[in-house]
């Protein structure tokens, strides 16, 4: 049933964006977490890819479709990866985790980047909610025929 598949597809989008939000929250919460001398929390990022479709998510008659694009399965989170960029070093000689030169290694979390990511995730989530509502209304309209 394509009507109900659309709801499932929007749900995959909402799940992915919510997970992205969780990761942003984790990054912000750990913006100052040090884990040892010369080591600190690394910013995490979510990677996404189009989901491999289950048969019920197949678009009808994808005959003109290029490379199996007739198959739709929403989005799937392929992993949470660590940001490999350089960690910050802050001069704090009195800190218990300072190295020999007096520097403490701090996470590579940039609050501005996280805020932008947070807004983007919120908007994308809202877009999926709107699509979900539209699919729901369409299903209700179609069901009204048999009333």
């Amino acid at each position, binding site marked *: 049933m394509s009507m109900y598949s659309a709801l499932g597809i929007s749900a995959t989008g909402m799940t992915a964006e919510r997970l992205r939000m969780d990761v942003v929250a984790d990054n912000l919460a750990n913006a100052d977490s040090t884990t040892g001398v010369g080591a600190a929390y690394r910013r995490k990022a979510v990677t996404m890819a189009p989901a491999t479709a289950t048969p019920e998510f197949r*678009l009808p008659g994808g005959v003109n479709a290029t490379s199996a694009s007739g198959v739709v399965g929403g989005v799937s989170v392929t992993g949470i990866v660590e940001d490999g960029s350089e960690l910050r070093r802050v001069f704090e000689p009195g800190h218990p985790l300072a190295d020999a030169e007096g520097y403490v290694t701090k996470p590579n979390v940039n609050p501005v980047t996280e805020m932008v990511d947070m807004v983007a995730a919120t908007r994308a989530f809202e877009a999926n909610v709107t699509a979900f509502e539209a699919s729901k209304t369409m299903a209700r309209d179609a069901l009204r025929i048999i009333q």
Partner: protein
Amino acid sequence: MLFDDVTAATLSSALRGYEARNLAISNNLANSETPGYKRLDVSFESALASATHDAHSLSGMARSEAADLVAGVMPSSTADTVTAMRTDGGNVDPDTEMAALARNQLAHQTVTSLLDKHLTLIRTAIIGR
């Protein structure tokens, strides 16, 4: 089918098309932040228009045959590989998708109402009031 008429066949073909498009738009929105994702497009209007034109203009065609011709119209989907929207290769524009979603929903609602009215007419003919 008992009531093999071109009108009902046209309307249900259109419904199938709008539902397929809704699926494609939902998938585009779910993948709006996916790197390299190419948006899906669903088309069925021109195929349906030419099928209904044929069904109405070809003489000597049986009623059910004409209805089958129209009912056989299947929506087709294509990936839009031409346009670019993001630096990561993805080309989903949420605003365009939202507009398409709203337009598609309204069209679906229109066709559903029409089908409802059509079936009411048949019901009236059966029960005679």
